[in-house]
């Protein structure tokens, strides 16, 4: 296949874009630990209430300014629905769904993850700025989907 | 010579430490992506070698048989579960991987392929297809962990990968034999 000179330059440019974005993504994911939420643990979706730690959802202090939030998602609410933490805290969310596929998103943060039943999703976020953050479900889950929300209050 | 340049860039890219680490972290990617890509890097360099050493290939690989045998030996060597493990733990085996795949598998494959008769190509494809099927079943049904550095689940995935590659090779062979391309072309 004979190639035009400009065409080749353009294609090299294309490869550079693709490889470049791969390198940045890879560097951020593997060197800086900013990879996407990829919880690998599984759970029986019909027995969430009886399985630890989801038999007792809530906010738990695990260290200095470090919290673990064990959260269940169900149509159409988050449990716990209100989270209060001091500013500068790092929060480890551990979530699973009791029924259909939900999505969790905390507005103005990088928390955004799918929470399908049967899987335990994990994501970590540091809250520096005080204020009230909106947690919402961003995967359609039924009639009340638009009502499914919770809050994080950072003091 | 552009091809050879791209081949060299590909080879160097595959040798960048983070790329090595990533491509060896998952068993299937190690065996079914990194290794073949190394081979492809070698294949791209063939025109360069042919220009540099025009007589060598004609003289010593006239009918393509030695080349294809060398290719087979290298890929079979890398099929042993042991070599996969050692590539991760023994440095010189790792080095051997980066030399053998491009230069002892990729280069002879491309040089030999054009020289082989249709029959020899057919036999080659069938043999590879059968070996890969065998490896597929081995990895799928092995109760033990064959590679100490990889999980059993990855071993299963690798098994399916072998089966699909074998399927692709045998389908290729079948379409070549069954469809009479002269009818269309």
């Amino acid at each position, binding site marked *: 296949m004979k190639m035009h000179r400009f065409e080749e330059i353009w294609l090299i440019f294309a490869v550079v874009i693709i490889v470049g974005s791969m390198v940045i993504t890879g560097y951020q994911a593997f060197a800086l630990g900013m990879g996407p939420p990829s919880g690998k643990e599984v759970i029986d979706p019909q027995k969430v209430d009886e399985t630890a730690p989801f038999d007792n959802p809530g906010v738990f202090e695990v260290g200095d300014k470090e919290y673990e939030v064990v959260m269940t998602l169900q149509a159409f609410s988050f449990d716990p629905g209100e989270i209060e933490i001091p500013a500068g805290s790092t929060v480890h969310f551990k979530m699973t769904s009791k029924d259909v596929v939900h999505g969790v998103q905390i507005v103005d943060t990088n928390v955004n993850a799918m929470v399908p039943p049967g899987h335990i999703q994990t994501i970590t976020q540091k809250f520096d700025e005080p204020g009230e953050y909106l947690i919402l479900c961003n995967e359609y889950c039924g009639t009340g989907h638009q009502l499914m929300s919770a809050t994080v209050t950072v003091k | 010579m552009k091809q050879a340049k791209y081949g060299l860039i590909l080879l160097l890219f595959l040798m960048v430490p983070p790329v090595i680490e990533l491509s060896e972290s998952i068993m299937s990617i190690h065996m079914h992506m990194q290794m073949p890509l190394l081979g492809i890097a070698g294949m791209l360099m063939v025109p360069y070698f042919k220009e540099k050493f025009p007589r060598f290939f004609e*003289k010593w690989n006239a*009918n393509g048989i030695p080349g294809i045998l*060398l290719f087979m030996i290298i890929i079979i*060597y890398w099929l*042993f579960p042991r070599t996969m*493990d050692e590539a991760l733990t023994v440095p010189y085996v790792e080095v051997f991987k980066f030399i053998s795949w491009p230069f002892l598998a990729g280069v002879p494959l491309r040089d030999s392929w054009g020289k082989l008769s249709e029959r020899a190509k057919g036999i080659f494809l069938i043999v590879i297809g059968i070996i890969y099927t065998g490896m597929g079943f081995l990895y799928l049904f092995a109760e*033990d962990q064959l590679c100490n*550095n990889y*999980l059993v689940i990855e071993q299963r995935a690798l098994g399916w990968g072998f089966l699909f590659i074998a399927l692709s090779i045998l389908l290729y062979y079948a379409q070549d034999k069954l469809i009479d391309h002269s009818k269309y072309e």
Partner: protein
Amino acid sequence: MSNKKRTTISTVIVLVFGFILFYIGTDGFQAYTAETVRTNALIENSPKFPEVTLEDSKKRTYPFSEFEGKYVFITFIYTACSDVCPQLEVNVAEVYKNIPEKFIGEDIVFLSISFDPKRDTPEVLEKYRSYFNSDGETWRMARINDQEELDSLLNQFGVIVIPDEQGDFQHNSAFYLVNPEGYLTDVLDFTETDEAVEKVTEILEKEAGDTQ
């Protein structure tokens, strides 16, 4: 020289190269998996069991030298394991049962070492022990609390433990036999219990013959 001849020569060279490569690569057509290589090397090198502190299911803490003067029949496990470890321990029980009773406790002790000290507390081990009719005396189950000691032991005995992301471990399994001086003398296939019984009994009888 014609090209045909040359090609024949190069074919031969390639085949010879292949033979040598395979010969070296498999230690003379013996070891096709790294596991075989590992066991062969272990038996050859017979490393000394490092000095570690064990905590067993009876909450007793003691160094490994406690077993000096006796053979120790060792397995590596973790109790949350759902596939290999129970099978491994069932097989240990099989061996334990079939070795002449006079040796048990006197010349040989059985020891199952957990590499998951976080979850395998003495309570957990005590419960696990009962599943396999281990008496906790002549067949003990213990954990090693010091991570460094544990790592050095696993490393020396070539036990590769890969945690997967679901809280389980992938690991290789075998029976390890340590002699009265504390050196590893044999690594046995854990699926062949009869063979293990035979071999261990033979060693013990030989030893008994020597001392008398």
